[in-house]
């Protein structure tokens, strides 16, 4: 376990980068969302209409703002940190386990930050202006559990996806990584096609599970990415 924790500490070496940035990203989403509504308010007059305020429940900012950063964290971990870990006498298996634990921490901090944001959103009566950032439809309109778990698995999928492609690059080089990427893309399209041809069944699941269906799919993707990176890291080289 000690060896695994060392790799996790390597992942956490710059804590601001892997734990602090999600906070700033969400802060920027709040500021931008408030700014956009302030501009609308300037044009239409304050207070904002119920219709405008409710329309912000479709705000996707929280979901779409962090993935780019999180994917890059995963890629850096699987390439740069991997190289340094091997240089410092770490085995591939322990590196993977320690880094995966680090991903869990980043995801937990990201999800917790969103939950705290939701609390602040309620305390400030939706950021003083009526804008919805965390209290949105896709996360159950204030469902704390759905918000936490939804963002946790999304962050894990992004980190693990970045790590998967970083590890594939280390194991197989550029050309074969692109081929793997294409294969994964084709597999994803095949699954979508399968879902489309079974629309009635998917809609029945959607009715039964609600937003948790999407959460489960993202969780399965994250697990598949983690398993793929574990398989690839055994062949990865510097």
């Amino acid at each position, binding site marked *: 376990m000690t*060896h695994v924790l060392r790799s996790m500490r390597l992942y956490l*070496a710059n804590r601001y980068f892997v734990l602090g940035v999600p906070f700033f990203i969400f802060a920027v989403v709040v500021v931008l969302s408030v700014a956009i509504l302030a501009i609308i308010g300037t044009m239409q007059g304050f207070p904002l209409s119920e219709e405008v305020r409710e329309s912000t429940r479709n705000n996707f900012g929280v979901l779409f703002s962090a993935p780019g950063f999180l994917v890059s964290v995963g890629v850096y971990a699987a390439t740069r940190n991997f*190289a340094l870990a091997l*240089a410092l*006498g770490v085995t591939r298996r322990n590196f993977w386990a320690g880094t995966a634990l680090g991903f869990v921490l980043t995801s937990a901090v990201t999800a917790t930050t969103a939950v705290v944001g939701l609390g602040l959103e309620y305390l400030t009566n939706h950021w003083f202006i009526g804008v919805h950032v965390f209290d949105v439809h896709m996360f159950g309109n204030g469902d704390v559990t759905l918000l936490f778990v939804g963002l946790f698995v999304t962050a894990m999928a992004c980190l693990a996806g970045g790590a998967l492609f970083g590890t594939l690059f280390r194991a197989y080089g550029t050309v074969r990584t692109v081929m793997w990427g294409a294969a994964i893309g084709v597999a994803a399209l095949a699954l979508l096609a399968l879902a489309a041809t079974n629309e009635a069944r998917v809609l029945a699941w959607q009715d039964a599970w609600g937003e948790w269906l999407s959460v489960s799919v993202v969780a399965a993707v994250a697990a598949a990415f983690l398993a793929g990176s574990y398989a690839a890291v055994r062949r990865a*080289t*510097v």
Partner: protein
Amino acid sequence: MTAGISVIGLTKTYGDHTVLDDLHLTFEAGKIHGLLGANGTGKTTLMSLMSRHTFPTRGSVLLDDREFGEDPRQAQRLCFIRENQLYNDAFKVRDVLRIAPTFYPTWDAATTTRLVDRFRLPPATVVKKLSRGQRSALAIVLALGSRADFTFLDEPYLGLDPGARETFYEELIRSYGAQPRTIIMSTHLVDEAAPLLEEVVVLNQGRVALQAPLDEAESLGLTINGSAVALDGWLRDHTSHQELTRRTLGPTATVTTLGPLTEAARQAAETARLRVSPTSLQGLVAALGNSNHEAA
């Protein structure tokens, strides 16, 4: 089998290109080994294979007679900071210096602090912003600080000014003196580093051209100059001297040879009016690099 690192039939190919070809070597434990040879002869690849940064096409590497695979206790006996070591772009020098000691129970904090001070490494600077010399200095700090049983130094002086190189040599001796361990250092500054080395391995075109203790290696290279006819005669009579390189100017020739100079051979050269002088280790490595010699 001698304890240390044993390289058994190691071959590494990339496509059609063979970088290392059926290498058999032993790096005895507790010595400083020089890994020498021209660019592209496979020095870094050999160190990568010995530290499992990459995998061999064929053959194996033993640490103290054991394959180490994914054994974390064996892995933490190794430290190999590459000449072009990758660091996370977000890491500052202080991040690396804070995290590295956690990987080695043997970490030498006093040496680290002293080296950071002597190399004037800026702790708050992002590693990717460091100069070439500062990156080398950081690699030296990590390698010597680790006190790993098997420490690899890959051209550790790159970008270092003469003063900093002197600091490195001094600290290497100090650290090694405090805790003797197996250090394998690749270098092109052969004569400058030679006083530190106990054994040398010279690679040429992916094969072992020479492996010998330093004093023996230094005595093996000769430069012989004189009449080309007389020189050829001398070489025919002294087959233990292998011609590595030859320069001809009219009737005279200069050859670099590999082989021990016996008293009889020296006298025969004198009789044939051949001038015999020792070749520096650097000269010998260069000559081996320009020849097809392979160690027996």
